[in-house]
């Protein structure tokens, strides 16, 4: 046997800890840089001053109401989506799974579009709540449907139910948008996945969900590895797969629901980041979760910053930047994996 992964040595826990610290420092630097860069470049000292000694000046206002909320939204959404993706891939034992699979994005989009159609765009920060609730309801319906019938409580049941509910809701959303031009204009940016124009109030709304979700995900780590061996093996090891799969989906709702509410459906983060993490540090989910959280946050912060620089527009949606990098990367991944299989 001379497979590609044959000789790989598992990273020691010390090395993992050190890498995690390096990632954290990188994230801090990236977040500061993303706040500094824009139409006017701000020195780090001014950013620190705006945060700790806010004086109401134009620059401080710019930092606190426009730049920082944007970066915070990127950190939260990126970390949450990557962790949610890692959980979904473990639960379904499907490397292609992502949070959208349980209908999170379709549910959120449907709720946002419905609210905007009914009440106009003037709903302000409240739409974040509707988005979250829409995502949660869709995911719960998917989970309930997936638990019924002969495929009950199997990953396949979950995937099938997710596809059905997702497609159904997306069709309804599209129908509404066809008949309502003004809503289409308003949600266009949101549906691409964007952190432009986020407010502190919006970030504050989803922070509790994402923080609770992240802490729960960290505690879930060990159980996820066992769950990823499949329902029979999990039960034979004394785990109740139904309970833990339910807990996992609940955490995914908190994380992905929060992320989508804040930044719209940013694709690829939940798919690609867990992959890279597992390739680098292995499949032990006690480590995959923290790495995915930092990696996802770092990816979205950098992608948003690079998108703004390269495309010269402050409102360029980060979802598009990530798709531009993510799609070719994923294609490469799929192709090299397939070659390695034979």
């Amino acid at each position, binding site marked *: *046997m001379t497979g590609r992964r*044959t000789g790989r040595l598992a990273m020691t826990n010390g090395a993992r800890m050190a890498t995690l610290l390096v990632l954290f420092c990188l994230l801090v630097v990236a977040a500061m840089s993303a706040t500094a860069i824009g139409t006017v470049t701000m020195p780090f000292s001014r950013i620190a001053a705006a945060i700790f000694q806010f004086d109401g000046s134009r620059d401080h206002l710019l930092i606190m109401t426009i730049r920082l909320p944007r970066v915070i939204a990127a950190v939260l959404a990126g970390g949450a989506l990557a962790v949610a993706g890692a959980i979904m891939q473990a639960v379904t034992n499907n490397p292609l799974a992502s949070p959208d699979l349980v209908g999170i994005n379709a549910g959120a989009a449907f709720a946002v579009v419905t609210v905007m159609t009914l009440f106009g765009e003037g709903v302000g920060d409240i739409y974040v709540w509707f988005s979250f609730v829409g995502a949660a309801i869709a995911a719960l319906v998917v989970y309930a449907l997936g638990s019924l019938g002969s495929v009950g409580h199997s990953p396949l049941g979950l995937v099938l139910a997710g596809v059905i509910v997702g497609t159904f809701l997306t069709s309804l959303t599209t129908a509404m948008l066809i008949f309502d031009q003004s809503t289409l204009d308003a949600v266009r940016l949101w549906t691409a996945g964007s952190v432009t124009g986020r407010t502190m109030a919006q970030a504050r709304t989803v922070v509790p969900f994402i923080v609770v979700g992240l802490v729960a995900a960290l505690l879930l780590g060990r159980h996820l590895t066992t769950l*990823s*061996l499949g329902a029979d093996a999990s*039960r*034979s090891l*004394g785990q109740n797969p139904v309970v833990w799969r339910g807990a996992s989906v609940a955490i995914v709702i908190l994380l992905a629901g929060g992320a989508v509410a804040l930044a719209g459906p940013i694709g690829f983060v939940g798919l690609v980041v867990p992959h890279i993490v597992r390739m680098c540090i292995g*499949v032990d989910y006690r480590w995959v979760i923290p790495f995915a959280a930092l990696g996802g946050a770092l990816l979205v912060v950098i992608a948003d910053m690079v998108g703004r620089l390269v495309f010269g527009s402050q409102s360029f949606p980060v979802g598009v930047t990530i798709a531009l990098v993510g799609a070719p990367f994923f294609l490469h991944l799929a192709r090299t994996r397939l070659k390695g299989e034979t």
Partner: protein
Amino acid sequence: MTTDKTTRFGKIEGKGVHIAYGKRRIVENLDLAIPERRFTALIGPNGSGKSTILRTFAALMKPSGGNLLLDGRDLTKLSTREVARKVGVLLQGPVAPEGLTVADLVRQGRYPHQQLFGRWSAHDQEACEEALMLTGTTDLSDRALDSLSGGQRQRAWIAMTLAQQGEALLLDEPTTYLDLEHQIELMKLIKMLVAKHGKTAVAVLHDINQAARFAEHIVILKDGRITAAGEPETVISAETIFTVFNVKTMVIRDPVAGTPLCVPL
């Protein structure tokens, strides 16, 4: 390898057990006692219910009726954790996520012994190292499961069940898809675990001659009923094989081991 408990050896006993998939009855009124600290083979044609019985004895399925006892206690009333501390299970074609290492897999065997958010103990570590050593997978422990050969992979999964430190080991067709060398190697491993480490092993096997050669107790099943059960010498006869498998054979003595050997006519 395990503890010095004197009375509990992973004795599994079914009395009047009924097993059904929905309304379809697979097994009716089965009385089957698995002798403790012995190697038992379940054989029978496809659809004879042998895998279903194994799954039920592993508490992965609930019997629709009858009594199922594990060391004298009602198996269906035990928690999955309690069962997992006594019984290790290797099912057919287990799947592990891509990139999972042998060490990662074996560590999962400690799941039933760990508290909800408990820490990894020195004893957990010892159990894993012993499991790796017994199965000869210590040198493979950092390798990804998907980079191993079929035989190595099966040994890694068995190492996981050994890390559970239960008294009983239930294996569903552990040698299927393995080449002859690895089949023999695996059978010897199971036999060694029973002889030297006091395990109670139950394996569903396809090869009658392998069962006769390595197992100490054979249960022959047809249509969810036991046709014959006992030592290979008493159970394997041309008549039984014809009744169960509908194949005419001549039973001779294995020139090497002296066990019964079926030769199709």
